[in-house]
């Protein structure tokens, strides 16, 4: 395996971080993921996924500006590193490659 392992939730967090484009931080990511996937997400899950990603070197973080609703605390803003981007691309390539090899693509579920 020359590619780092990426868990499913991590992948979602990483993609969402990319989508939020420089405005990704804990709460924002949580809401983003909750909206897009419809599953309940807890803050600590997001934080731990971000930590793991940072340890793997796929995101990097910097402190943002303090805001009032945070009680004057700063946000930790996450952005993708090049390695993170490449990993995402690789994941996507693998998926697309696999999809393309399906001989009988799935029909919509109406037929069932």
């Amino acid at each position: 395996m020359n590619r780092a392992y990426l868990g499913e939730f991590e992948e979602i967090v990483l993609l969402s971080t990319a989508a939020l484009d420089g405005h990704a931080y804990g709460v924002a990511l949580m809401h983003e993921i909750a909206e897009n996937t419809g599953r309940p997400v807890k803050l600590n899950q997001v934080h731990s996924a971000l930590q793991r990603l940072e340890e793997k070197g796929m995101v990097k973080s910097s402190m943002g500006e303090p805001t009032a609703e945070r009680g004057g605390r700063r946000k930790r803003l996450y952005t993708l590193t090049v390695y993170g981007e490449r990993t995402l691309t690789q994941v996507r390539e693998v998926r697309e490659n696999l999809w393309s090899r399906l001989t009988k693509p799935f029909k919509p579920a109406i037929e069932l």
Partner: protein
Amino acid sequence: MKSKHLPQPPAWADKLLCLVCAPHLLESILGDLHEEFEYQVKKEGERKARLHYWREALGFLKWRYIKRQKQYYSSPFVFSPDMIRNYFTIALRTLAGNKAYSFINIVGLSIGLAAAMLILLYTKDEVSFDQFHANNPNIYRITNKYISPAGKQVGATGNTGYVPGPKFAAGVPEIKAFVRYHGHRNDIKKGNEIKSETVFRADSSFFSVFSFPLLNGDPKTALKEPRSVVLSEEMAEKHFGSKDVLGRTLLMKDSFEKDARFEPYTVTGVAKKSPQNSSIKFDIMIPMVIGPGEMHRATNWFNTFMNTFVLLTPGASIAQVERKMNLVYNADAKEAIKEVALKYGMKDKKVYSLQPFTDMHLSAELPSDNGLAGHSNPQFSYILTGVALFILAIACINFVNLTVARSLKRAKEIGIRKVVGSGRMQLVAQFLGESFLLCMVAFIFALALVQLVLPVFNQLADKALALSYLFDSNLVLGYLALFLITGLLAGFYPAIVLSGYNPVKTLYHRLQLSGKNYLQTALVVLQFTIASFLIIGTLTINSQFNYLINKDLGYSDEHLVSVDKSNLTRQQAYLLRHQLQKDPDVLAVAPKNSGRWNTSAKVNRGEEVAFTYETVDPEYLPAIQVPIVRGRNFSADYPADSTGSVLVNEAFVKQAGWKDPIGQIVDFSYENFKCTVIGVVKDYHYADLNEKIGPQLFTMRPDNPYGKFFVKIKPGTETSSLRHIAKTFTQLFPLNPYSYQFMDDENVKQYESEAKWRQIMLFGTILTVFISCIGLFGLATLSAERRNKEVGIRKVMGASVASITRLLTSDFLKLVAISFVFAFPLAYYAIDKWLQNYPYRIGIDVFIFIQAALLAVLVAFLTVSFQSVKTALTNPAKSLRSE
């Protein structure tokens, strides 16, 4: 504008997170939580939001968020094998490179540790005394207290008579068994040889109450038959030449009884040697046989001449048992109490109590005596411990002082270590390790030293200790603790100081230890305070001892031989004198009662005077050269002297308050016997000097038996006279054992305990002074080295050798002088306290203090001046050439 009732997230949750979460994560976590809270408040309302907040917050209690951030500079692994090897190398090199320093430390610490080990051995022995009996802690000794009518305790004794044991055992259900134990003397006949030996008499329950295993024989029945005897293995070996002697017989008779004949005793048991930490030590044990009348004679409640031990049922309440004992006593002795009060005027109430068997050994109030061996004064333990701790403390001080003073030399090493990344804890560990290494070497030497000096110590402390005692888990723990404490005590401070050096300063030669080094000064002062204190103590004990053995006793004990002969009758005494004086070298023969009799009688119509009661004949006082101050001596010319006349000493006259003593009446009311004073004898020290001269009364009453006689011989004729005495004695009394003592030797022997104290203090002081001095020597050496250049420059500028020596020496001598300020008051207090024990004592002399001061200064001066002179004599060119 924000409303005042802005909903706030639960503060407790925040506090919890602040406490638990890693600081570098905290800000973003709390920020996110608060932001989410605000969002939830808008969406769900405050109550639900709070709940939600708690749920979210608790989600962060995970190791991932708790784990602290790693330091950027990771701390090095402290105990890597390489570093440890390096520490050892460096430690050994420093030790080897500074031989004098290592020698001082190791010798000092070895001696200190050895002293402490000896004391541990000693204390263990003291504490373990009598602990080996299986029936402990249920064995007690019956003791009694005397309570005056005013309710004050006026006396106490651990001794009892025949009656209390059996009576209490019968009347108090908690008392399971009793043993009366009494030391006595019997004459033993082996062939034609007669020897007087100490025997012990005990009740048959002895071997079931106490744990003295028998090699042969049945412990239950060994003392059942009246004519049975239990021997120790040593005594069996000595008398029969074998240990297997069950059933053989031994001819014995009571040494004191007048009509006793030799009777065969059958050996019913051979006991193992009594342990050395036992109050009961016996070689010959016979059953206690009591005349039939004794138990019923009620006044026997008031005899006190032996020990009675009782075995209680486990868990019995002592207070209850004591209460019942006194009930039994008051009921049984009702008549006797009245009788005694009437006859002897005894007004004090007697109360029985119990003393745990294991407490006797160190008890000052109720000591183990009267047949019980080895009682020791707890004061002795304290003093020994004190001296040992002093020695150890001084050795530790040496270590601290020398290590800190020498640390300048190691400053570079410390600097380099710090620069290449050594942490402070690592340096502390290194230096502590070095001190432990040194301590371990010292410890091994100390063990060897203990083994070496143990025989001497045993003799001094009257013990039979062995290093094999060490194989006892408690003692090994004690020694380990001693080792650790010494290592820590010696190494801790230097380790802290050395590890605190600033690396920049040390590497640029900017570190100065000179200037005021208060700790070193204080420690040296402390050392010499202890040393001077001990010197003063030793000098005082020495002069008091000399005073005791040289004091004029008021009588002449020179060339005075004392020979024991029990039941010496008047006729025998007459015959003996006649026979002995055939030799012109025998100057006088004077019979006397044996032992010491104390009694009391009435004077001046009813006043009681207690006195020492001496039975003598007319030759006694001239023989010991005690003058008659008033009146006359007994004389054969007055036949009434033998019955109705007495002599008293000056103390008696004073106590009775007589102006004109001659012709006064002394009334022995309980015997219905009155006698007249015919003379006053000058006070003399009839007992040892630990006792004040009290009233003394001399009589010639024929009813009182003689028990020994004194023979005054011509100086220089000891050999021939003694031969003559021995021959006469064996001729006249073939059935009595013969032994003699010189009175002057005996008088010196009375001060054995003082002699021991003197020796122990002397050893302690010599060691203390020695260790202090080698420490001082080390410091002086280092200081001389440090001031090498200064001395060079001074010499170049024209200072003389003498002035430089004075300069280098005076620093230390000043400290010694300061130590006197502390030592003198302490010593004064201590020796004043100690001398209070003696009614006849030396005054506290300024001379002793001056002597001690001179001695301390002299020793310190000699120690320091050696180095100072050496430094002062060096060629300044040498010390100034470098740089």
